[in-house]
């Protein structure tokens, strides 16, 4: 590392060029640029000082290049905007001219001066000081080289909603290997629950299911459902990821989705179906929904008898009769041994069982025993199953895929890039108590209605009240529930106006009911969205501009008896209205996933204060995170509709591909390093480094910085009590020189 200090030019060698930018009028209107240039000419080592309207333009950069080539300068100062904007631009120009790019230094006289200083004189003085500082500093610069690391070409996509699906397919189609990890038993996310999508009203299933099955069959995609990322380590291009496969109790590789197990299951049939928002019921073993991908069932251990009661209860109708608990436990143990292929022990246990078990089981068992002794292991197994196994699903499965003793498994994978597409959750309707969700049965959330209108939903597309049969004659749709409200979420959820219009259309179409939309502002900015709103206006849907004050059931007139009454001010007409309806739909907003904070920590990315994952730059780097190699797609970054989600997923895939396709990553050399002879081995820096880039050399017992992980944050440099931690481009010498520059000319 020490060799980075070797190119030490003598002061006499240094020839500094100072280029002051007008930035149109951004700088020139506040800073007397000419004065700054004249001032710079008199600074030590300055050989060229000049000004230009836009230094970042090709012509501006060319001035620098020419001056270097002609030998006039060998250090470059540009006084202009912030390094975030154009440091790279000018470093490249410097390199282009023929010298090391790190012989360049930027003086920020826009963000730090012209945009924030009131008086022209003050601004000019400040600009001069910053230029002087830069001139001083640059003389201490040394030539540095970028570092390169190889990149693993595989990509991990977390979350299998439309965002994750789109990103995974794009990357896989480019010939790269993708791991898609979804924590639910099926991919599809929220979109899989919808019937139609705005604004085109095309059928969600028709556009989503083909993509889902492509994911399933794509040779480049490894799909892991019911799995979660457990741990992430490493750095851009070289991540090591542990994925936990949760206990599904089904062998997902062999299950063919025939649902024989579901038919055979004798467990409770009244478990609220998650996919249908609890509007229908399922058994403990179930297929999440007909088009679930992969088409693999799952056993819910909270309701399955095997877990709640220690086994399916015996079938009283058969000749087997009642099994004593003692016998049941013997059976279970025998079963366990059987599964472990310990036939010796199984036999012993079975003999015990047989002493008290009904006759035909004995026969069966003896039959199996014979088969086994004849070496016909498979047949013996099959028969033994019938003797032993009391769980109906196990017995019914033609593939032997039910595995009630499945344990969690961990896969470890290496990837170069990660795309996070974990989506959103909807706001819980009961949190706005004034709308009576869960208090009045006929108040629904929008997601429930999405299931009701869905042809493959719990009612086959019939929109009915909670009683399951009555069609509503009037429906109120309340916008902005859980959005634009300081009691819940301040932001606008962006999609609910449009989906409310969609639901209004579908409800009108299916039931002919009077539909009232209560909205604050109608937000339909999107391609074809305003047109959709217009269409709805023609469909005779009522639009009331006013946020619903409450949903209640106290009556003031006959027509309100037995109805839900929505009270709101029609603000455009300046009248309070009481609208009696049969059904109320809450257009609930979008919220970050409950575990967003955990995911954030796992992947070492940032969250906005609401909990959405934070992009590096809202305009210029919308799918990048502050951690290199980790990208964002879809609603996990903020509320968005499907078109935007898909576009963003494409962008994230492109960014990931750009990273892995080139095969290596370039690292800025502004990393920290430890000067061996100064380090006392106190290890303060090891604990402080936010990127875990510092380790202790086991032999020398001093700290070592891994330059691939170091982000150049400088924490260790500031903390090191022995001054051993130093940082390229921020050496003590350079910083002191910079300070001197400021002090000397203020």
């Amino acid at each position, binding site marked *: 590392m020490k060799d980075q200090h070797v190119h030490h030019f003598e002061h006499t060698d240094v020839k500094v060029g100072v280029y002051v930018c007008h930035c149109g009028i951004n700088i020139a209107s506040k800073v007397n640029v000419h004065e700054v240039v004249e001032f710079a000419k008199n600074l030590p080592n300055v050989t060229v000082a000049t000004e230009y309207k836009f230094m970042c333009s090709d012509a501006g950069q060319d001035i620098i290049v020419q001056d270097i080539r002609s030998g006039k300068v060998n250090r470059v100062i540009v006084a202009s905007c912030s390094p975030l904007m154009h440091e790279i631009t000018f470093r490249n120009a410097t390199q282009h001219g023929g010298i090391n790019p790190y012989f360049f230094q930027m003086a920020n006289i826009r963000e730090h001066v012209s945009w924030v200083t009131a008086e022209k004189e003050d601004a000019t003085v400040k600009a001069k000081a910053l230029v002087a500082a830069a001139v001083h500093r640059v003389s201490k610069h040394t030539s540095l080289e970028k570092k390169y690391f190889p990149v693993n070409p595989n990509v991990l996509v977390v979350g299998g909603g439309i965002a994750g699906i789109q990103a995974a397919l794009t990357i896989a189609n480019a010939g790269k290997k993708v791991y898609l990890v979804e924590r639910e038993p099926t991919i599809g996310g929220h979109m899989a629950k919808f019937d139609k999508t705005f604004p085109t009203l095309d059928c969600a299933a028709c556009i989503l299911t083909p993509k889902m099955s492509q994911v399933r069959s794509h040779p480049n995609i490894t799909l892991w459902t019911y799995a979660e990322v457990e741990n992430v380590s490493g750095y851009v291009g070289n991540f090591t990821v542990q994925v936990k496969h949760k206990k599904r109790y089904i062998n997902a590789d062999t299950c063919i989705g025939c649902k024989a197990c579901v038919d055979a299951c004798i467990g409770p049939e009244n478990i609220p179906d998650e996919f249908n928002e609890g509007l229908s019921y399922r058994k403990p073993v179930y297929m999440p929904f007909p088009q679930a991908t992969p088409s693999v069932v799952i056993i819910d251990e909270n309701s399955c008898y095997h877990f709640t009661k220690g086994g399916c209860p015996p079938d009283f109708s058969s000749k087997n009769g009642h099994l004593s608990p003692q016998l049941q436990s013997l059976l279970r143990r025998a079963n366990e041994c059987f599964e472990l292929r310990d036939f010796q022990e199984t036999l012993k246990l079975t003999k015990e069982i047989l002493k008290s078990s009904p006759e035909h089981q004995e026969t069966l068992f003896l039959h199996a025993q014979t088969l086994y002794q004849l070496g016909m292991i498979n047949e013996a197994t099959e028969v033994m199953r019938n003797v032993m196994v009391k769980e109906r699903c196990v017995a019914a499965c033609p593939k032997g895929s039910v595995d009630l003793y499945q344990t969690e498994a961990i896969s470890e994978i290496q990837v170069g890039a990660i795309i996070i597409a974990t989506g959103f959750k909807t706001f819980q309707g009961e949190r706005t*108590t*004034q709308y*009576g969700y869960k*208090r009045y049965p006929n108040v629904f959330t929008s997601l429930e209605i999405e299931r009701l209108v869905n042809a493959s939903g719990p009612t086959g597309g019939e929109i009915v009240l909670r009683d399951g049969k009555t069609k509503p004659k009037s429906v109120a749709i309340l916008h902005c529930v859980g959005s634009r409200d300081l009691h819940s979420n301040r932001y606008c959820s962006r999609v609910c106006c449009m989906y409310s219009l969609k639901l209004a259309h579908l409800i009108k179409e299916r039931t002919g009911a009077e539909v009232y939309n209560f909205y604050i502002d109608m937000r339909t900015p999107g391609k074809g969205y305003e047109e959709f709103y217009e269409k709805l206006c023609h469909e005779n849907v009522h639009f009331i501009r006013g946020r619903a004050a*409450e949903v*209640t*059931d*106290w*009556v*003031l007139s006959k027509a309100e008896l037995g109805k839900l009454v929505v009270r709101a001010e029609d603000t455009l007409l300046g009248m309070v209205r009481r609208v009696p309806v049969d059904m109320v739909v809450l257009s609930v907003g979008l919220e970050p996933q409950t575990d967003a904070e955990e995911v954030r920590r796992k992947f070492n990315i940032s969250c906005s204060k609401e909990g959405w994952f934070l992009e590096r730059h809202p305009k210029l780097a919308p799918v990048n995170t502050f951690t290199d190699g980790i990208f964002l797609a879809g609603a996990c970054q903020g509320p968005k509709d499907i078109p935007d989600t898909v576009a963003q997923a494409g962008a994230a895939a492109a960014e990931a591909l750009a990273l892995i396709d080139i095969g290596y990553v370039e690292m800025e050399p502004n990393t920290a390093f430890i000067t061996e002879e100064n380090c006392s081995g106190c290890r303060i820096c090891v604990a402080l480094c936010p990127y875990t880039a510092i380790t202790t050399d086991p032999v020398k017992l001093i700290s070592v910085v891994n330059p691939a992980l170091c982000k150049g944050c400088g924490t260790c440099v500031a903390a090191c009590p022995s001054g051993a931690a130093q940082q390229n481009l921020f050496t003590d010498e350079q910083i002191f020189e910079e300070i001197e520059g400021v002090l000397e000319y203020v």
Partner: protein
Amino acid sequence: MSYLYYPGCCCSMKASGKAYEESLMAVLKKLGVTLEELKDWNCCGATMYMAIDQMQAFGMASRNLALAEQQCPNKTPELMAPCSACYVVMNKTKHFIEDYKEQVGTPIRNALKEAGFTYTGKTKVRHPLDILVNDIGLDKIRQHVKKPLKGLKVASYYGCLLVRPYSEFDDVHYPRSMDNLMEALGASSLEWPLKTRCCGGSMTGTVEDAGLRLSYIILNEAERRGADVVVTACPFCQTNLECFQQRIQRKSKGGISDLPILFFTQLVGYAMGIPERELGFHRLFVPFHFSPKQVVTEGVE
């Protein structure tokens, strides 16, 4: 358990709300709670007063808070304010002193200092309902019930100020604590949406038509849902809902019939077997009758 007691003057515990004071005292005594009246308390600065000069209103309320601190120097003073208006105004004052330090906090603290007080803001303003449900607890109350109110349909009316905007012991839209208390007494509590709707009490004296209309809506809805009795937690509400029933009947052309309006403490005391006279039942305009016998036969059928 002991609390400081702030009677309040506006719709006074000593005058129109006398039955509230009587029943509250009787019930708390039975439950072993001791009360100490706040010495030399003044008007809380309630709503009307705020209309003229808010700062002076805050000044008045804060004097009570400071007095409480003075009277309980060694512990957190818990000041029980049975009137919802006093409860809100004093809580509001506490909040404003904290939330608007420059505009309210500093001048009030200075004024109190001038008057010889040290104000730390540690006084807690409590409502008897909060105390009964959360400090004493429904279990203990259940143990004291002698005459369960089996079959009595009670509409719990919290009034507008009790659960909003500064109290934290219940939901602002659909509170349940009084309902739970009534159920603990054996009564069945009515699910109804007007629990916190304004009764118009502050209007009846001035813009009578408006006030009466608001009361009418509440009485009508309670009656429509089959309430035998409405219980309130504020002397303002009780007077307003009860004393004007005849006028409302006239105005609404018989839209409502007589409905007893009790303080929740009266029913608690009643169920505990405290004699009616001690609970101020004789002060009611609309008498309250309850015969468990008749209900028992109903239950058998």
